[in-house]
């Protein structure tokens, strides 16, 4: 299968994609979860964090890590199960070596993370087309 580039306005580049992480059961503060990678260069435009089961504190700060370095943070308005927060961002992942993940601000609770992203025009995808 060949590597292919497409026109800038090809759906391969204009389509907003989603990635839904596995549910993460957080045991301790500073635990890293919801890892996401892409072989091709992408920009992550939005992150939605959902509380599956609540931890104790509502004010904990969660940190978005790009390859281990803090990029942005978010908090939940309320720490109850079913609550969620959506943040917009512009985090570029250059290759599969760049890891996007979340660092928990507290121990306890279960979370699920959704990422929305676009493949950046010029990136070559493996295709049988």
């Amino acid at each position: 299968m060949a590597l292919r580039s497409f026109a800038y306005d090809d759906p391969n580049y204009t389509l907003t994609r989603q990635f839904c992480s596995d549910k993460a059961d957080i045991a301790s503060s500073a635990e890293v979860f919801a890892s996401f990678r892409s072989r091709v260069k992408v920009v992550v435009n939005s992150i939605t964090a959902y509380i599956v089961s609540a931890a104790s504190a509502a004010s904990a700060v969660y940190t978005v890590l790009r390859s281990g370095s803090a990029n942005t943070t978010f908090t939940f308005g309320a720490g109850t199960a079913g609550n969620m927060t959506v943040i917009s961002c512009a985090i570029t992942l250059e290759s599969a070596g760049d890891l996007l993940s979340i660092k928990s601000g507290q121990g306890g609770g279960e979370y699920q993370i959704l990422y929305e992203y676009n493949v950046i025009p010029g990136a070559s995808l493996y295709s049988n087309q």
Partner: protein
Amino acid sequence: MALRNQSYDHPNYTVVRQFCAPPYPTATSAVAFASFRSRVKVIVNAITAVVYSAASVAKVIFTVSRAGSANQTFTIASATSAGAMTVVSCAVTLLSAGDLLSLSIDESSGGYQILYEYTVIPTESLYSNQ
């Protein structure tokens, strides 16, 4: 929502999709991981394996299995370095959700993350509200 067929050149069939498997934190030899299925017929065109945490040996061999049968193998030559990766092109067709794509390795150390690139094969019917 109804099942719909689209034209051959519809983006549903031309877009290359990606699946990022959850990290496999501590490898166990010969145990399947990074499983992937599709309800509709797809062709997997590339597999990327990234060393998440370093292995204790440099060379690890991955076996790609389709529905339990070995399809092909590939290696990471420097698995003692976190962040090392390899990309292998392939043409593995999954006919339905009954076909399981998975990997296994020959080593019981290191952690790995796997990415699949795949395309839905034209004429496949997808559930759509369009």
